[in-house]
Structures are given as C-alpha cells and as structure tokens.
C-alpha cells in the first residue's frame, strides 16, 4: 500500500464511489453490484449523456434514447423496490428522479444543447435582460406598441390597428425564432462532426470554442425572442 500514499483526498472519494455501498466489493457492473446484485446510486458526477448511454452529441437517435430510458426505468422505478430494504428504496427513488431529469433534458434539442454547453464550457445559462443588438430598435418599438395597445380602447379603430400591428410583429418574431433554430441545427451538425473527428490540435480547439460561443449566443437570443413572443401572446389574448 505504501506506493498509494501520494494519492490525494479526492481520488480516495472516487475510489469509494467505485465500491458497492452494500458489500464493499469493487464495482464492475453499471448500476448493479455484480456480487450482491444491489442497485447502486447514479453518481453525481455522471452526466446525462453517460447516464442514458449516449455519446456527447447534439444530434441523437430519439428511438434509441427512449428505449434506454424505458430500460433504465424498469431497472430503477420505485414500483420494483417495494419489497427491498429502505436503503435500496431511497437509491431507487433518487436514481429514478435523476433518470427522469436526464431524459427530459436530452429529449428536447434546445435543452440538450443548453445542457451540453454547461458541460463543455462549465458555466451557467446566460440570462439576457436586454435585447440582442440586431433586434434592439425593433424590440423598443414593439414595447411601445404593446404599451399603447394595453392603454387603448380595444374596440376602437386605433385599437384594432395596434392589434393588427402586434399580430404581424408576432409572426415576424416567430419566423426569426425559426431561423435561429435552423442555424442551431447546422451548428449542432458541425459540433458533432468535430467531435467525431476526435482532433485535439490547436485549430480544432479554436473551432470548438467558436462553435460553443455561437451556439451560446443564438440560444440566449432565442430565449429572449421566445419570452417576447409569450408576452405578445398574453397581450393580444
């Protein structure tokens, strides 16, 4: 054991995690101890892609995702732990909740991309409070129109005109949102291609950073536009 003394504390924790909580034997199975067959907690370090057995890519096979989700649901769901010990029931509940979050996140392309950005760039979701620069004037004008509409007599000529204006604006914004989603789709493909190449060189790293930044910008602009559209829908009624 002497040669192990240099191992840091965090390494010790990782070692502990690779042991079965119940029989302390080394874990070789994925979620079940091969020796005592007890369910193992999904580690906090396990990302959702790993949890659902998928490569860290932005285009995924939905049917494969669903099949894995169903398979793991059968493995973890509390329904199947009613006759087990309290410790196993607690693990089953925690694992099932984690699995459900993982599936919900990866199933939706936007949430999937946001999650991947968090993993890759290690930062929280950026919440935009002011409009993107290319939309700045348009949004300011729209806010004014909405104010005017809220203050107007809806049945009057002016009210009806403002309403028509808002509806047209809503359609324009939804088109813009759709464009952004198409742009994102292209970036997703670029990202996956880059990952598949497995290139660790400097140009590849620069390309990676560029893609991450572009995706992040479009995602936050899209969220902003989506919120404005929601506001519009609520105002128009």
């Amino acid at each position, binding site marked *: 054991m002497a040669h192990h003394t240099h191992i840091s504390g965090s390494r010790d924790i990782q070692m502990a995690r690779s042991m079965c909580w119940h029989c302390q034997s080394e874990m070789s199975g994925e979620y079940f101890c091969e020796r005592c067959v007890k369910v193992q907690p999904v580690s906090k370090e396990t990302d959702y892609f790993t949890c659902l057995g998928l490569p860290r890519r932005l285009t995924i096979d939905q049917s494969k995702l669903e099949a894995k989700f169903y398979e793991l649901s059968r493995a973890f769901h509390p329904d199947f732990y009613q006759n087990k010990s309290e410790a196993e029931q607690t693990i089953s509940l925690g694992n099932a*909740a984690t699995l459900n979050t993982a599936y919900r996140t990866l199933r939706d392309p936007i949430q999937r991309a946001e999650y991947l950005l968090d993993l890759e760039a290690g930062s929280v979701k950026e919440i935009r409070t002011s409009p993107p620069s290319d939309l700045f004037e348009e949004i300011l004008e729209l806010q004014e129109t909405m104010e005017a509409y809220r203050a107007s007599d809806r049945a009057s000529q002016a009210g009806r005109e403002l309403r028509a204006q808002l509806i047209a604006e809503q359609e324009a914004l939804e088109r813009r949102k759709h464009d952004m989603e198409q742009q994102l789709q292209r970036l997703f493909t670029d990202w996956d291609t880059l990952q598949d190449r497995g290139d660790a060189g400097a140009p590849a790293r620069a390309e990676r950073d560029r893609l991450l930044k572009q995706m992040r910008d479009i995602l936050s602009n899209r969220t902003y536009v989506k919120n404005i559209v929601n506001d519009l829908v609520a105002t128009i009624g």
Partner: protein
Amino acid sequence: MARIVGIDLGTTNSLVAYMKDGKPCVIPGRSGRSMVPSVVAMTDNGLIVGDPAKEHLTRSPDRTVYSVKRFMGKGLADVQGELAYFPYSLTEKGGVIRIKLGEKTYSPPQISAMILKELKQRAEAHLGESITKAVITVPAYFNDSQRQATKDAGLIAGLEVLRIINEPTAASLAYGLQEKTQGTIAVYDFGGGTFDISILKLKNGIFEVLATNGDTHLGGDDLDRRIADLLLHEIRAAHRIDLNAYPDHMQALRLEAERAKIHLSDSLKTQIAIDLPDGKGRYTRELTRDQLEVLVMDIIERTLAPCRMALKDAGLTPADIDEIVLVGGSTRMPLVRQRVQELFGKQPHWDLNPDEVVALGAAVQADILSGGTTDMLLLDVTPLSLGIETMGGVMSSVIRRNTTIPASAKEMFTTYVDGQTGVDIHILQGERELAKDNRSLARFRLKVPPLPAGVPRIEVTFLIDANGILNVKASDMRTGQSQSVEVKPSYGLSDGEVERMIEDSFKFAQEDVTARKLIEARLEAGALITTTEKSLSEGSRLIAPDTLASIRAAVAALASAKDGNDPKAIRARMADLEQAAQPLSVAMIDDSLKRSLQGKKVTEVT
C-alpha cells in the same frame, strides 16, 4: 408479501379490487353489489356506511355525509360557493374543513377512513385474511394537499397506503392488461365530482403519461345540481315553497335529480315526482333528454378545455390519438360521448364497466408493487407546477407540470442580511404567475448559521415521489450537514392530529364492537327466554316446585339484565338460566323417551 388491495375511493361510490389468477376483480358485498356508496351516517346506534347510510340521506340529512371527497385537502373558503348545497354543517380548524355530525366534528380524512374501513372489512371477509396494505386512487389533477389527505385517510383506517395512483392512469392499466394495447391513448374520466384527462403512450408494457389536466371540482354532482336548481325554481314559482328550508326534501330532490339524469342516459324522457312538505301534495313534471342537454351543455363544454390543454402539453393533435377510453359514471351520458367524439374525431370506447375500471387498475398496480406483475410499468406525471414564492410575491417554478415522477429539483438559498438565522420558504402549486393566485401547499423555515449576508449556502431538494407527494430536504453546502425540515401544511392535518385520529378510530372501532356485542347478546337472551318459557308451559309438571321457582327467578334475572347495557352481565345471566333449566330439559327428554318407548318390545329398544 402480504396481499395489497386496490381501492377506488370515489366521490359517489367506492370499490375494492384484487388480483385473482392474473386478472383484477372487484370484491362484491354480501348483497352482491360491488359499489359501496360513499355515504356515512351518524345514527343513534353509531356510524354506518354505504347502502344503509344512503337511506339516511333523506331521513337525517344533517347527520349524513356524502361527496366528502370534494372537501379533501381543502379549507372552508375553498367551498364557500357550494355550502348551501350541503345539509350538514361545516367548520374549519387549522386550515382543514371539519364536518359536524351530532356532538362531534370530523375531518374529511376521518369520514373517508370510515368508507375505507368498510372496504377493508369487505375484502377481509371475502379473502379470509387481514388486509393492511392498499393502493388508493385519486383524480390525476389532485394537488399535494388532496393526495396527502387521501393518504391520511388510509392511515386512519388502518391501511398502509403503498401508492397513491391517478384514476385515469389506473384505468389505462386495466385496459392495457386486457387488450395489450399499443399506441397513444386518451383517458377521459368524468366522475361524480371530478374531471380528468390523461394522454398516455403505451409501448411494450410501459405506460408513459405524456400530459394530464382536469378540474377537481367538476362532475356528475354538478349535473345533478342543474336539474335540482331547475326543480327548486319551478316549485317556488308554482307552489310558493322554498324547499331550501327543508333539508330532507332537498335531499329527496337531489336524489330524484340524480335518478332522472341516469334514466335519461337510456331513455328520451323521464317523469319527475317530488313530495312537497306540510302535506302540500306533489310536484311532477316530465324531463326530456333534450331539455337536460340544454341545462348541462356548458358543464360538459368545460371538460373540453382541459382536453385541448393536455393535447397541447403533450405536443399532439387530436389526430395523433389512437384510442379514447371513457371512465366514470358521467360518461354514460350520450351528450358527453358525442362531444368527446367530436373533439377527437374518433369513436370513444368503454368496453370495461366505467364504474369499475379504476378499481381494477388499482388492483393491477397493487400486483405490480407486490411483484406479481412484472412486465407493466406506469410512468406518471405531476399534474401541477411546483414552485416557491420569490421577491414581490411571484411564483418561481421549481418542477414544471407534466414532469415525469419521481422528479427532483435543487434550489440554493442564501441570506440578504448579516447574521440572518432563518430563511422562510413558501411552497406553491399551480400555473399562475403570482403566488397569491396559486395553491399554497406549505411553509417552512430554513435554519441558517449567523454569517455575513450572502455567505450561507443552503441547498433545498424538492422531491416529488411516485405518489405525486412532495418531500423536502435541506443541507448546508458549507458544512455538508443536512437539516430536517419541518413543513407546515397549509391545508392539511398535522402528524399529531393524524395520530390522534388513528387512536380515535380504534376507540370508535372498540365502541362499535361493544355495541354489536350488546345487540347480539340481547337477541340471544330474548331467544333463550322464549324457548325456556315454551318448555315451562309444556314441562313444568315434570319438575319439583323449588326447581320451577329457581327457573322462574333466573328468567326474571335475565330479562332485567337484557334491559341493561352490559353484554357480559347478559351472558352471565344466560349461563345461570341454562344451568337452572338443566333439570327441566333432562326431565323433558326422559319424558319424551318414556312415551316413545311405551308399547314397544324390549328387543326393539336395544
């Protein structure tokens, strides 16, 4: 593992079912009827439940509780608008409605527990074993407080509630088991007091709920009220009588309205007759199906908005739905079937009895939990968004509606003031923006070490379990220590109260047993006195005068014990009499033997 039964605790009727040889079946009562009316009456001889209690609806309306499910997990203010419809009086204590029955008040979980006990006893009598575990169904759109109240009712009834499951999803399990259906189905569940719509995807034994919606205050009761209101109005106009002042007549009116509604599902017209109070004769009228449909059209329309919402949340259009299943007694109404068919553009089906299908599904879920059925798995969702109140009285969503359960979310909390030692957290459920427009579930106070503002980091985990019930945990991220969170429910019984109610329920059970023993002892004592007197009239000449006197004394002693309230004393006097009458019976047997032997040869006797 001990047997687990499935229970449908309904607004109007309740049922219990179990899995028999891989098939769910409903347990009938002695009369052969599978449904127990969800009615509890307080009589002079104690509490009674079900069919016999239903008879008391018109006899003692102020002491007979029906539709108690409408009050589960609610405060008095929630039902203010409909108080006039209920002949029993309601109060509130600690955010929980209390129902006054004679001298005592009962919480809705206590009343529900009496119905559950009846079902428990029914199952025990049928299966010949003690039943302590159950799966109980609730409307899918029930919030946390209503689910918790249902769980409390189970505890009070002496049942461990292993799972609370949603009624429409339970129904889908019963259908899925029967037909091995695959594809996307919509379950339209219109019951006595609640409406639910659930959209599910069925694939290889997995029942994944995609979206659910509903209205926990919309059901057959509301249809009955429309008819009752029409009759009330007409009686007032024609006879100048306000039946509202006569609770017994109001109940008769309500039952007549319900009967007429049910009759109009099969017939085009029905005759309505109501006896008027104070010998003022009878009010009669004909009601046609067309008239009924005009009366209730808007109520049925109100079920369609949740259907559209559920479709939207599931990301589907009506054309994506492969099958529509109808559940609940109110779906027997032709107009309901017609509107559902128009919305989905498909003929709905109701192959299984809509009254029984939920209980059958609960039995299937019970079998899954006990390890019997292993190929089916239900993945349900939480019907309402869960959130916390943030600055400015706004609700911040923590777990969104239609999230698959179990579901968990973590939130980090800190302090705004130096040395602050607590953070108050208000948990809400609902879809509205402002906290005050949503349902308040509970409040709790996080304990925080006194530190400069912003330094403490307390992580709170909100976990919605497979029952759709919230659990809260908190831990200090700086020390890694977890703290217990004492959540004070806004509309629920405290743990202490539930415990007291469990004790009370045992006490009631004891009182019930004593009462039953007394009744039985009195009956048997009466029978013994009758037979003894018959023997005396025939055989008093066969015994000595002092024996005769002691028998007569024992009869008198038993007769006076029978008028008392002590079953033990009655039993003791019965034993005395039996002993005293012993010489009489012996003498009578000898006498009859002697007579039968007369004139016969000795050889014939041996």
